[in-house]
């Protein structure tokens, strides 16, 4: 608190007289704190006196229970200004090396069209919008999402698609459980083709284990042993092969199982689409539709399926309805599948998805149209065919005759493979090494003739002359098998055929964003997802090439900037939460929550307590809690809340005793979803621990805790953070999010691992496709912490609590606050009771909210 006070004071002093200025006042390292918080010193004084408090300290002392207050301030580097923070981060970014990437494996170079980069990805009208719960302020975004769904349906030739998934790997895992729910085959066996991306397989293994699904690997189209409920194929395969599996698919489906295909959307402009090959579910990534690789994310994945599966499909769907005037209007559809309604019976725990990247991908399709996309794909396929011809002439023929963009060459020995990879790196390019002796090469939209020649050079022996371009590439061709060439049309809707001039595109993007409400025009006062300023300085670094244009599986020595960012941010977040270890891999809050529960289960299993399977959840909990518990293989037991909205301790005690032998954990949200600091939280944690259970503290409300109290200190064992709530990553209109999972000391060895950083150990496996999840947005939270420091972060918490209490107090006579602590105070949010108003006037909560 002293920091911000000094900052304000210092500014005024500096303006009034130069003789009294100090160096600190002139250099003003706390410049950003006042810009972020917004309330002036005068505002604060007025608000404090209105609610009858002498100071922020006395307010906090009266609200946050004394027995959970932090033992010591967070140990963070002191705040620095915006320019200084950008300079420091740029120096860190310079430790990432931007090489041309031919690694592929789900991540490809792409040109983000400038008009989309500047007017969507870097435009607060798009990135600061909240999730589209209020249809009337989200029509623009929802039109873009309908375009996304249409694009996916058209390219995959499937009847229905959702409005994005977190990444291809989690989409494939969700497809697995969708198939499990939807087919009648009683088996628990799930086959994965050996051409499936390894990071996808890793996430599938993590997800399958708690659900009792047995994952088996199959080698191409062969007779499968035993009954299985579904099979996952990759199209084209990991090695680039384009296989015609139609007959095999038909015979597999004849036995009642479902066929899932993970497909490359750009390849589908040229390839026979999965829907025409018999696929039941199709998943994939839209990354190469204009979203930079960003060391693994954020990118929008997709999931499309047969119409019969639609009520079981995960994620959000946008549908076209009519408004009160009978005109077409967009809204979220089929929401009864979702966790806020179905709780532990929900089809998935996914809520935040990848709306901003999905909007970018859909606009990429709008911008290029079907002809433009086809031209890009044909160019890639032609370069690939040319590359293959040249490699063959060098004696390095690829393993397969068929390909779209990827070739695999067996060099014969690990040393030879290493030599090729080293030669490529020397020429500022990365290729993929696999299976010891093989080299994989993937071309993309950014590939050029020079790149093809560079790659020939990497394979050529010292005495070999490189092929002549004109000799191997007289006319552009492709290695796509004739039987698998696409004949059906796609993206025929006018929206994909109308905005191909930049003016047209610019105006279309502007027209849609004008229909939405985002933080650039107004506050969005929504509960636990309290919106924060997404400062421009925080956003700037995410499109720096050093962060945006690197591949997640590039050699570790090229990703040192990210390693430093990961390490520093984790250390700071440990300070903020009081925990001992953190993983930044979960790419949404729901994923962090799921990972946290798996960590608890893994620890208990390793300590002979694997039978513990009961998860206690108060009835007031967010629906994601029970949905995640179900996915982690836990049985949910709901505990009661008292009339004040607090956890009913008597009921909790009873449940703990009843389930003592099998109690795995309790999941609480603190402060509660009703906006109250419950005084008995420390007793609650002790009670659960006394029965051998662990305490999961949902971090949704960390906005009220940072700098004031730390879950890791007052009894929590695991929490997830929502960096998109508490640490300034924008909501993006419904994603991307980042959901780090934070744990106490004895759980650290069980945090998520990743295939790219080695297997083995006690970790729970992969939660996301990429090792750092949505890596490219992590600089936002780093910048926020660096510019705020300990004092600034704590001041932000105090300001939020002050503001909520001021609102509650000012409105009290007409709109009583429903839940408050014994002294009438609330946390950082309050629930206003509009029932009396409705009774007296007929005006409902909805009328007020939507006014």
């Amino acid at each position, binding site marked *: 608190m002293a920091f911000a006070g000094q900052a304000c004071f210092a500014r005024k002093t500096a303006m009034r007289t130069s003789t009294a200025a100090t160096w600190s006042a002139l250099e003003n390292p706390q410049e950003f704190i006042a810009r972020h918080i917004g309330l002036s010193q005068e505002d604060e004084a007025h608000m404090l006196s209105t609610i009858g408090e002498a100071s922020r300290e006395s307010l906090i002392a009266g609200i946050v229970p004394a027995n959970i207050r932090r033992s010591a301030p967070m140990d963070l580097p002191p705040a620095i200004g915006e320019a200084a923070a950008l300079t420091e981060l740029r120096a860190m970014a310079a430790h990432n090396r931007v090489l041309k990437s031919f690694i592929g494996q789900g991540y490809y170079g792409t040109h983000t069209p400038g008009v989309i980069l500047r007017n969507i990805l870097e435009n607060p009208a798009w990135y600061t919008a909240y999730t589209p719960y209020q249809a009337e302020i989200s029509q623009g975004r929802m039109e873009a999402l309908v375009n996304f769904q249409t694009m996916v349906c058209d390219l995959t030739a499937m009847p229905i698609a959702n409005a994005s998934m977190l990444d291809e790997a989690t989409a494939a895992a969700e497809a697995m459980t969708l198939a499990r729910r939807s087919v009648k085959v009683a088996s628990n066996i799930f086959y994965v083709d050996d051409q499936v991306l390894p990071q996808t397989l890793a996430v599938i293994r993590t997800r399958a284990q708690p659900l009792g699904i047995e994952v088996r690997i199959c080698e191409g189209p062969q007779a499968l042993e035993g009954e299985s409920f579904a099979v996952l194929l990759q199209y084209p395969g990991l090695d680039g092969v384009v296989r015609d599996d139609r007959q095999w698919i038909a015979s597999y489906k004849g036995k009642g199982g479902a066929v899932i295909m993970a497909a490359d959307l750009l390849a589908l402009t040229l390839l026979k689409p999965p829907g025409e090959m018999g696929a039941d579910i199709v998943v994939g990534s839209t990354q190469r539709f204009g979203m930079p690789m960003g060391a693994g994310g954020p990118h929008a994945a997709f999931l499309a399926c047969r119409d019969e599966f639609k*009520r079981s499909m995960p994620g959000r769907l946008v549908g076209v309805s009519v408004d009160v005037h009978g005109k077409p209007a967009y809204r979220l559809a089929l929401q*009864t*599948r979702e966790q806020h*309604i*179905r709780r532990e*019976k929900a089809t998935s725990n996914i809520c935040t998805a990848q709306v901003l990247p999905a909007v970018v991908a859909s606009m990429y399709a709008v911008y290029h149209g079907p002809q433009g996309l086809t031209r890009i794909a044909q160019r890639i396929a032609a370069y690939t065919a040319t590359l293959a011809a040249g490699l063959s002439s060098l004696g390095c023929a690829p393993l397969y005759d068929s390909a779209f963009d990827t070739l695999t060459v067996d060099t014969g020995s690990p040393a030879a493979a290493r030599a090729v990879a080293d030669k490529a790196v020397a020429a500022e390019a990365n290729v993929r090494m696999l299976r010891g002796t093989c080299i994989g090469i993937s071309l993309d939209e950014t590939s050029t003739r020079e790149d093809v020649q560079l790659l020939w050079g990497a394979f050529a022996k010292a005495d070999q002359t490189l092929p002549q371009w004109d000799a191997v590439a007289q006319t552009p061709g492709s290695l796509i098998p004739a039987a698998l060439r696409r004949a059906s049309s796609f993206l025929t809707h006018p929206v994909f055929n109308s905005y191909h001039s930049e003016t047209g595109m610019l105006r279309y993007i502007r027209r849609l964003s004008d229909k939405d409400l985002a933080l650039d025009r107004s506050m969005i006062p929504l509960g636990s997802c309290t919106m924060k300023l997404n400062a421009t300085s925080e956003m700037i670094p995410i499109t720096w090439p050093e962060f945006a244009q690197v591949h997640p599986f590039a050699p570790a020595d090229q990703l040192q900037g990210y390693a430093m960012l990961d390490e520093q941010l984790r250390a700071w977040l440990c300070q903020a939460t009081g925990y001992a270890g953190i993983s930044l891999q979960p790419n949404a809050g729901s994923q962090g929550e799921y990972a946290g529960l798996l960590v608890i289960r893994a620890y208990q299993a390793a300590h002979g307590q694997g039978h513990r399977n009961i998860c206690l959840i108060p009835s007031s909990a967010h629906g994601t809690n029970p949905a995640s518990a179900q996915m982690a293989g836990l049985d949910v037991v709901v505990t009661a809340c008292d009339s004040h909205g607090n956890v009913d301790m008597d009921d909790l005690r009873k449940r703990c005793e009843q389930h003592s032998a099998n109690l795995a954990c309790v999941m609480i949200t603190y402060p509660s979803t009703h906006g109250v600091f419950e005084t008995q939280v420390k007793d609650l944690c002790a009670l659960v621990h006394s029965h051998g259970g662990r305490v999961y503290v949902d971090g949704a409300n960390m906005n009220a805790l940072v700098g004031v109290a730390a879950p890791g200190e007052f009894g929590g064992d695991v929490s997830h953070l929502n960096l998109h709530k508490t640490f300034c990553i924008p909501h993006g209109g419904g994603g991307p999010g980042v959901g780090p999972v934070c744990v106490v000391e004895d759980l650290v060895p069980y945090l998520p691992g990743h295939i790219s950083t080695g297997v083995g150990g006690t970790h729970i496996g992969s939660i996301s496709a990429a090792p750092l999840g949505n890596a490219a947005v992590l600089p936002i939270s780093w910048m926020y912490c660096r510019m705020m420091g300990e004092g600034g972060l704590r001041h932000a918490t105090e300001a939020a609590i002050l503001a909520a209490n001021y609102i509650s107090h000012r409105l009290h006579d007409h709109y009583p606050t429903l839940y408050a602590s014994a002294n009438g105070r609330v946390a950082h949010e309050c629930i206003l009771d509009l029932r009396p108003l409705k009774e007296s006037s007929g005006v409902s909560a909805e009328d007020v909210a939507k006014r």
Partner: protein
Amino acid sequence: MSLLYTADHEWVSNDNGSAVVGITHHAQDALGDVVFVELPEVGKTFAQGEVTGVVESVKAAADVFMPVSGVIMEVNEALRDNPSLANTDPQGEGWFFKVRLSDPGQLTALMDEAAYQAMTA
């Protein structure tokens, strides 16, 4: 033939060892416009209290529980095609399924009209 009721808002009409099952007026009123019903498979056996299917409205989804143990003999295909029958005539045209009872004694534990009315009042 009078109807019997469960605390989960299903009704049962008993007819000599077989029974028709649906959701109550009160249930459909609480749910609002029903847009989808998932009906059980004919021939499948359920114990009392097991989930036989789902009823979804524009604002909620609810499980339909087996009020009495037995085998599904028939389901209301008309309801599948026109779920709003559960709103317009929940205790008539909007029935869900017919059951062959395996333990008719369970019926005695269900509520009669007056008891159900008292519970939902």
